[in-house]
């Protein structure tokens, strides 16, 4: 099984084998991060444009560092200092960047489907770094990587995703990735944010938090995406914390080997108790470390040409 895709647009269209290739490749890149010289020449001479039309710290820095460690040349592009302010369309901006011979475009945009659109109009490799509430593929890959590394497997595990599912691209990508790899995914949160329609994606939906986390091997917490919610989806933050926040009392009722994940940024005291975020069962910082390795792996794999796999 080899990787033959030109773009990474979503998890939905990937096969379980393809996801596994990324995870296996990422393992090698994680080892590179532990060396004295953390840089390899795999993307030497390639130009990567980081086109972040929606604010991002973690993902942008992670991609940037991944590109640097692969020896690529980088152009960073953010909305504040760009021609978007002058009324240029995304397509024109992207075409201009391509006219400078960019090889990769890493795109973050508030509109779902933007990366797919760019992949149709550009010749460069397109990587989705988060599009609206649709998908955030590299986050799902790093989550899967972290789970597999910690638990030794993914198939058969109970993974509970707790929080704002409706507006979360991380949730969608996670659901695709984890169910494809054989995990049993449970979604939980206020009924306004976790509609039953998500059952169509092959997971279980419940609004009883204690029941949702009781048998979980992994509890993945999501932030309330205020910026995407067009109306108030629940009465108050205080009530959300009381009903769905992960606190010590709730954690005491989970399995002792259940691990806690969060894609960040975390809101301490809202979806997660401050102490829990820092406890030994929390994988939050580990996820950040693994994110770098996964993004290096994605860039490395997409860079491959069409030729045969055989490497003597």
């Amino acid at each position, binding site marked *: 099984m*080899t990787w033959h895709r030109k773009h990474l647009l979503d998890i939905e269209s990937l096969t379980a084998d393809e996801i596994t290739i990324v995870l*296996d490749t990422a393992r*090698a890149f994680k080892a590179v991060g532990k060396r004295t010289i953390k840089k390899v020449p795999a993307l030497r001479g390639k130009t990567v444009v980081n086109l972040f039309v929606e604010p991002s710290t973690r993902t942008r820095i992670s991609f940037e560092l991944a590109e640097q460690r692969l020896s690529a040349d980088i152009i960073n592009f953010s909305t504040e200092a760009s021609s978007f302010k002058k009324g240029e369309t995304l397509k024109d901006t992207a075409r201009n960047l391509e006219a400078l011979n960019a090889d990769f475009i890493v795109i973050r945009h508030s509109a779902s489907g933007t990366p797919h659109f760019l992949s149709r109009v550009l010749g460069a490799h397109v990587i989705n770094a988060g599009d609206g509430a649709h998908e955030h593929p590299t986050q799902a890959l790093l989550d899967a990587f972290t789970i597999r590394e910690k638990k030794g497997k993914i198939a058969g595990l109970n993974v509970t995703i707790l929080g704002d599912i409706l507006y979360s691209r991380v949730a969608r990508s996670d659901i695709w990735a984890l169910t494809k790899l054989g995990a049993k995914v449970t979604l939980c949160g206020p009924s306004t944010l976790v509609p039953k329609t998500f059952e169509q994606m092959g997971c279980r939906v419940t609004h009883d938090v204690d029941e949702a986390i009781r048998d979980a091997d992994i509890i993945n917490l999501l932030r309330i995406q205020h910026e995407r919610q067009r109306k108030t989806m629940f009465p108050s933050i205080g009530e959300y914390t009381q009903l769905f926040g992960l606190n010590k009392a709730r954690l005491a009722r989970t399995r002792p080997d259940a691990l806690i994940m969060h894609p960040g940024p975390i809101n301490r005291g809202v979806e997660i108790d401050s102490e829990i975020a820092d406890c030994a069962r929390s994988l939050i910082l580990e996820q950040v470390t693994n994110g770098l390795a996964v993004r290096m792996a994605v860039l*490395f794999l997409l860079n491959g040409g069409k030729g045969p796999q055989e490497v003597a």
Partner: protein
Amino acid sequence: MPETTVILDAVAIQRALTRIGHEIAERNEVSADVVLVGIPTGGVPLARQLGNILSEIWKQPVPVGTLDVSMHRDDLDQRAAPKIHPTIIPFDVTGKTVVLVDDVLFSGRTIRAAMDALNDFGRPRKIQLAVLVDRGHRELPIKADFVGKNVPTALEEKISLRLAENGEGEVLLERK
């Protein structure tokens, strides 16, 4: 109809490795400075076996590592991304004589990549190259220090090595 010939059988492989082991010992007087590094996949079991042979000659353990070279290849954007194997070098290579071990020497590009990759781990005093089969067709100015068998081949022929963990195996030449 592809025609397959056995170039080296298990006994011949063993004999070649034993000879290479003695050549390495002859060439390198300070045994404590020599480390072996196998290139995946074929070079890894060979390096391990050479390590055993040298340990017996020198009556002291010889460090053996594994070096993946795929991130340093010069053809990454011309073929599907290679599978990356783990790199395990549990010793400092700086100041050492590193003997790179591979199964087949062909264009020489893998060895160039290996020398680059090795640089990331330190500055060896010397790098030497041991291969089981040299099939010719070099594209770079690279030459092996220790060769099991020289096999003149045509470009379209294929050489494959089957080697089990215990060292049992054979080298095959396939004609299209």
